[in-house]
């Protein structure tokens, strides 16, 4: 499947230039800016909030990866059959979730989730 997928992606990109006519001219190669001449550089500064979102995403995604492992371990038949294991894992997760929620509340109070 990987071979087919990559093959398709590369094939259509390689074949296409031979099929279409190529008549470039300087005006056509200008970056599109609603028809007026380009102003300044396109690689301008980016709003800093986007970096913050990426950081928050990393934190939460890591947390979710841990929760997935926990969910599988708790519902695994041999584990769950051990008396007290379910209760134990729930207590562990409660502590983990509490830390996660405190973190979320802190981010919220600090205004990390605001966009204005």
């Amino acid at each position: 499947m990987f071979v087919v997928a990559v093959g398709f992606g590369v094939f259509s990109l390689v074949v296409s230039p031979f099929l279409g006519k190529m008549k470039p001219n300087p005006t056509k190669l200008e970056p599109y800016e609603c028809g007026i001449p380009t102003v300044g550089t396109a690689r301008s500064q980016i709003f800093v909030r986007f970096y913050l979102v990426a950081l928050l995403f990393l934190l939460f995604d890591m947390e979710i990866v841990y929760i997935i492992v926990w969910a599988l371990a708790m519902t695994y038949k041999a584990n769950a059959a051990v008396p007290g294991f379910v209760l134990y894992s729930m207590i562990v997760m409660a502590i983990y979730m509490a830390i996660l929620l405190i973190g979320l509340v802190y981010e919220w109070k600090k205004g990390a989730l605001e966009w204005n």
Partner: protein
Amino acid sequence: MNNQAALQLPFSLQPLFDFVGQVTGGSANAFIILVAALKILLILGGLLQTIPFIILLERKIIGWIQDRPGPNRAGPLGILHGLLDGVKLFFKEEIMPKGVDKVLFLMAPSLVVVPAFLALCLVPVGPIIQGRNLAALANFLRLDPTMVGPGGVISQIPMAITNPNIGILYVLAITSMGVYGITLAGWSSNNKWSLLGGIRASAQMVSYEITLSLAILSVILLSGSLNLYQIIETQRGGFWNWHILAAPVAFILFVVAMFAETNRLPFDLAEAEAELTGGFHTEYSSMRFALFFLGEYVNMVIVAGMCVTLFLGGFYGPIQIETIPLTALQGGWDGLASQFSQIPSIIITLASYLLGPLVIFPAKVSFFIFLFIFARAILPRMRYDQLMSLGWKRLLPIGLINLVITAIAVAGDLAYRASLPGGLDANPHIFLATKLILGAVTLGLFLGWDALIFSPARKKQLTTEYRNLERGADHPAQALAQ
């Protein structure tokens, strides 16, 4: 097989397997490769056939909603438009504007399409062929039973291209790779619109992926597995076993996140044509543009397929049809076949297997495709700050609380089942009552959230505050363009 002469193909396929076996070294390899190739051909080919028609359907429905005929030039009722658009895009001129980062610019469309195709290979479109039915199929195709059959090299054929144990985790990982394609397309284009579109898309997809994962976590807790076939197996038996009843809030979160992940309206800020001309694909033309387009639609089908798999029982119908004859007639499918003695049992076996991939699964997926199309026609686009606050301040806390409640219910159920005589082996599935109570509680909390938290006076105050904020706020695009 026992009570009548088994039907067989009039010719043998063995020469084909021998030939591939010589090339790949060993006939076992030949069987594995040919089965995989056949599945890729059927699933990927089938999907690529339907996408032009999905696009046509979308244009038709939007036209119908906007009181105009929609595309109607090529072919009767315009059914050729989708196909001809693809052909046209192949023959268009490739434009490489000056100042682009050439390598990334060329790579980006593939980076969108390849993960989409790779995620596609996990979508379970039909049941696993195994046991006596696989033996019957191998007999019908005149294949070597030591190769294809119970106990053979290929002892089961799942109707998905692959069926790894980490299933849903792989889908999550691979689909999020698509962010790279869109971001790099936006960045490498040397265009302000593209950059804004790419950055917006990456932040948006990343934010809603958390919601998506939280929704999936509920299902993982309920089914206790990452394997997509096992997730479907836990929903077997009828619509009352579907996870949508046990996890309605997770379903709602998943659907919302699904729209955001595929960059569809009302969350299509990445390509918002009214503000960013084309968004991240402004500078793309010809086949490179077509790949973005294709990737978007393949992604739509994949997330719809995932939603069906996780919440709506996958390829199983609302009522389990095959349980009725199997228990009523001794001898399973062969017994059923003897009831219709004119029809060879292999035909009935195949028909029962094809009901899922050809009827039920496409029907459920197309429900979501229609949802995508109607949402695009009806809903206005959200503002970017609204999008972010919806993702981080609404859906994330809802998802976490939903997860906690689900975990408590599942853990309680697990502990109770383990304490019953016979333990978990006698009661492998979560009780239906637990599922229904869980569903009712989470849905009630979700719907009654505002009423629980806010008094009417406070709600009114919040609304006025929000309106004032809305009036005074700068448009985020202005803040970005500075």
